């Protein structure tokens, strides 16, 4: 126990690493939902038999973009996207630059989850909304998104947890955060204390995200 407080690495670098991890997860979660949610809605609505079928566009979006992006291992995608990060943020180092590749890596994943959530909304509800004279946007906003909200919150929770894992990986290629700390000191310098502390912190972070997410989803669910 004494070891933890006297460890110079932890005392100096840990607070910064925690902030960097939270920054990476926060920024990329924001952009993932911002882009992934509409993309998921688009994939669902334009699918054959959907609200506004667009077979060709849907095929291209679904097969080419989402599936190809998702089939590239994240570690490789991250390295491949360094030039893009530099273009957008002016640097390839630090949590903000890492958020670019993190977002791009998780957007297709999240979009697929959203698509699945929306597909679970019973078709009768959409028929009912259309018969009462809803526009397509009203069907999407007032029925699809509203009715699947508990599921969407759960999907977001899963995505944020995944982002915590990815952010540790991003630490290795210059993103910083707890991942970098664990790798540089825990792994390369055999500092077991640092390794254990970072692991525990990541576990706590994931637990907190999971609990909060589940609590929100439950309080929204009236089924």
């Amino acid at each position, binding site marked *: 126990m004494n070891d933890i407080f006297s460890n110079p690495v932890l005392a100096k670098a840990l607070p910064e690493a925690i902030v960097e991890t939270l920054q990476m997860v926060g920024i990329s979660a924001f952009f993932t939902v911002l882009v992934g949610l509409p993309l998921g809605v688009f994939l669902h609505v334009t699918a054959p038999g959907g609200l506004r079928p667009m077979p060709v566009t849907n095929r291209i979006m679904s097969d080419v973009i989402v599936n190809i992006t998702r089939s590239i291992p994240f570690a490789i995608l991250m390295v491949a996207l360094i030039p893009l990060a530099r273009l957008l943020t002016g640097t390839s180092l630090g949590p903000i630059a890492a958020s670019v590749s993190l977002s791009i890596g998780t957007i297709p994943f999240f979009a697929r989850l959203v698509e699945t959530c929306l597909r679970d909304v019973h078709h009768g509800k959409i028929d009912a*909304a259309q018969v009462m*004279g809803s526009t397509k946007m009203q069907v999407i906003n007032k029925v699809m998104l509203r009715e699947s909200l508990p599921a969407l919150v759960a999907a977001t929770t899963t995505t944020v947890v995944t982002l915590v894992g990815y952010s540790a990986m991003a630490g290795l290629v210059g993103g910083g955060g707890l991942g970098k700390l664990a790798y540089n000191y825990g792994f390369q310098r055999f500092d077991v204390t640092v390794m254990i502390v970072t692991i525990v912190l990541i576990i706590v972070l994931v637990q907190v995200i999971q609990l909060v997410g589940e609590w929100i989803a439950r309080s929204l669910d009236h089924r």
Partner: protein
Amino acid sequence: MITVTDLRKVYRQGKKEVVALDGVTLSVPKGSIHGIIGHSGAGKSTLVRCLTLLDRPTAGSVSIDGTELSSVRDSEIRAARRRIGMVFQHANLMDSRTAAGNVAHPLELVRTPKDKIRTKVAELLSLVGLEGFENAYPSQLSGGQRQRVGIARALAADPDVLLCDEPTSALDPATTDEILDLIQDLTRRLQLTVLIITHEMNVVKRVCDSVSLLSKGRIIEHGALQDVAGDLESKLAKALLPLPASEPLKGALQGGPVLEILFAGDNAKEPVLTSVARHFDIDLNVLAGSVETLGGQQFGHLRVQLAENADHDAVLAYLHQRGIGAKLAATKATDSAAPEVSAAPELNDVTGRNL
């Protein structure tokens, strides 16, 4: 008043064309309830989708009080839909909305002011007997209560036509009766035009003023309930006044001819059987019977066996003379009613038993 004229719907399945509706024509006057009955695959669902414009009919027209619906432009389709309120088999309520929220849904779509929504919702919920359930979520309501919310929601936009797609098929018998009584009551009070699509003959018996039998995309029989029930040859009459498949009565009057007799309206009150027995001085035996009140009139459907030596042609003539429907079902009790079973294949499935 809703009028459907020569409605056709053809689906393409690969290279094959599937005719789902083959010229459906019907008309329901304001303030009355029309039942459309048919078994699965008869085209009921397609008819519903064409009436609500969820699907465009291939040909033909649907009009409400003279306003054509089926040919409106896409931009006007939503206004046209609001003239039809729809009640679904499983209510199809939004789980994330309370009872009041569900009823308010159609009103929100056209940006009704909040205070106006509140009064209208309270009014509708009390109309369907759900005062005090405003804040209940669908999961906290029973099936019958959910359907009541569904009905209130369907009426929220003040539609002219109420379209009910199997409204009671998911409910138990007691709740079915409650919901049907509510639909009937609302029809009279709000002067609605109601179409009930169903596979249950009981629904037709209980609330419908007129009925159509849909089979293979066509209406093969239709008319006021009293008229179809009074016609011994109609398939609907056999379903409305079902007789059990007859077992020959062992030992009793063996070998005598079997008649089917249908009393309608005032005839049902006369003691016809005893007068036949007295007039011809023969014995009669009732093998099966079914008595119903349909559209406020009494109906009786009997299968009667005459004594072996009886002159069945004379008896039939006697009955016809009195305006009573009657026909020879079999000359011998042993083969009675055998042809009847296959005579109405459209309805064997409907009622779930042989007629």
